[in-house]
């Protein structure tokens, strides 16, 4: 409990750090957010530009503005989007859910498939099935996830027409909850598979290596010499121990997962944090960009914390204090 509090408190300076970094980067912009607000016809009219600059407080030094931003955030005010004039907080809130759904589903899929294929390969070391899967795992790690997404669209949408390639729901679809759920699943299928493909490859390689390592340990020989069945040796003695390195890597894989979901959301038109963030970046919508930075960092950090807690479940020897 104390450990949890300590970890949560440690997240605060990190969030301040990352938001400061992105605030400063954005302020190196040669362009000016104010000029985007003025009617192009009046762009040479310095008075209207100055009016906007004043309204958006673009004239104070960077650190002063950062401090002001931070003060507002601490009071729960994320500011208003320059573009839509809506409160950023409510815009973000609506977009968190699709991103979380997408990343959690992809992570779960890649872990389940990667870990089980890893064990499968380790049990058939150097046989044809192991060689082919190991090769495929390299292929998965070596392609951009959005390109794999394109191949999926080429086949499942354009060739056989099974799956929709845009959005999260069929517009205007009404019906009982299971119809809506199935519709959602059909929309999420390709993004989730595209996002998880690279991960499947790397988890397969980790799990294969660590399973082989565990299978060479003395306690496995002891378990076998006791006359235990192979299934019991694999699942009761080897499986849990072989998962430890995978869980260790879990936290480190999260920034990549969120980064990948940013691209995938853009490609499949999913209204999540990544798509919102990309639009905001392209439009120099500072309050929105800052909010996306903040929330994507919180997502990653919360995930890292969860994976550290998961560690205790896999390896009871570990005690946090």
């Amino acid at each position, binding site marked *: 409990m104390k450990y949890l509090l300590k970890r949560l408190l440690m997240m605060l300076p990190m969030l301040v750090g990352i938001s400061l970094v992105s605030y400063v980067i954005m302020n190196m912009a040669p362009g000016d957010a104010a000029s985007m607000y003025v009617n192009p016809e009046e762009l040479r009219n310095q008075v209207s530009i100055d009016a906007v600059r004043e309204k958006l407080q673009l004239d104070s030094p960077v650190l002063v503005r950062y401090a002001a931003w931070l003060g507002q955030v601490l009071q729960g005010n994320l500011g208003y989007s320059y573009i839509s004039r809506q409160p950023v907080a409510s815009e973000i809130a609506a977009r968190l859910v699709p991103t979380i759904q997408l990343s959690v589903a992809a992570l779960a899929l890649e872990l389940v498939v990667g870990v089980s294929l890893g064990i499968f390969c380790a049990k058939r070391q150097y046989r044809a099935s192991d060689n082919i899967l190991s090769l495929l795992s*390299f292929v998965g790690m070596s392609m951009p996830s959005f*390109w794999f997404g394109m191949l999926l669209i080429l086949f499942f949408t354009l060739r056989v027409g099974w799956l929709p390639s845009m959005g999260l729901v069929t517009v205007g679809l009404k019906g009982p909850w299971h119809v809506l759920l199935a519709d959602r699943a059909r929309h999420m299928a390709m993004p989730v598979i595209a996002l998880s493909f690279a991960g499947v490859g790397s988890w397969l390689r980790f799990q294969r290596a660590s399973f082989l390592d565990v299978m060479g340990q003395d306690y496995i020989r002891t378990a076998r010499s006791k006359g235990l069945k192979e299934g019991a040796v694999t699942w009761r003695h080897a499986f849990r121990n072989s998962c430890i390195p995978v869980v260790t890597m879990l936290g480190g894989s999260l920034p990549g997962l969120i980064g990948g979901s940013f691209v995938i959301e853009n490609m499949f038109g999913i209204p999540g944090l990544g798509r919102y963030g990309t639009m905001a970046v392209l439009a120099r919508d500072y309050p929105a960009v800052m909010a996306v930075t903040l929330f994507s960092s919180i997502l990653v950090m919360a995930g890292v914390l969860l994976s550290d807690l998961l560690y205790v479940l896999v390896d009871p020897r570990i005690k946090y204090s």
Partner: protein
Amino acid sequence: MTTEKYKASPGALVLRRFARNRLAVAGAAVLILLTLLAAAAPLVSPFPYDELHMGDLPDGNPLPPLSPKYALGTDQFGRDYLTRCVFGGRMSLSVGFLSALVSLAIGIPLGLAAGYFGGAADIAVMRFTEFLSCIPSFFLILIANSIFHASIFNVMAIIGMFSWMGICRQARAQCLHLKEQDFVMSARAMGFSHFYIIRRYILPNALSPVIVSATLNVAYAIITESSLSYLGLGVQEPVPSWGAMLKAGQDYMRVAPWMAVLPGLLILFVALSLNFMGDGLRDALDPRAVRR
């Protein structure tokens, strides 16, 4: 054991071990071939990369591969796709290699300094590394790219600046191990300066795992560049890069699927080759590796 074995230089031994890994050798061959093609792009490509041939498109749609005049077809403006692929390779490969160089230039000095001097320097560097590796850096790369003029050099520098953490960690770990070795002790006893010891005694011995990690960085940078260009924040038209070509390809997937397939295949081949090479190098450079 023959005496000939002992005569071989360390370099030759590494090369021999590397040559035994067929996938790694194939990877190296593909990579060298594509790099040569990209370097000689103006010589091997039949057209300038931005030459339009709208008149050759009968119905306004891109020409498919194996058309007369255009071996790999054209894009929506009638630009020769083979030419675009070769010139795109120029961009993508140079982003890959140069941003790996940037990350080496940041990661090695920081890692060695942290490992060698220890104490506060070590803690500071390691905290900073940890910080950078547990934030969603892709979004920061995105922000930085939108802010600075979208030139190829900015893309390289920015990707490099956010991906040196693995290299730094490797360099530090090697340095921690090496600085306790007798030959470093003797160098210290002889009164050499810290800088000289790091440069002459530690750096050469710490390089091999760092090189492996840098190989993987090249693949990471190429894939990241393609994502950036796909989002419209990397290499800009009319200059081709494999990622930028994928972006255009997506809009024409229905009528011209090859436009989306070809550049992706090239990225896949290069990244795959680099991953195989990294694997082969890891085994070849490890003197304790068991012969298989």
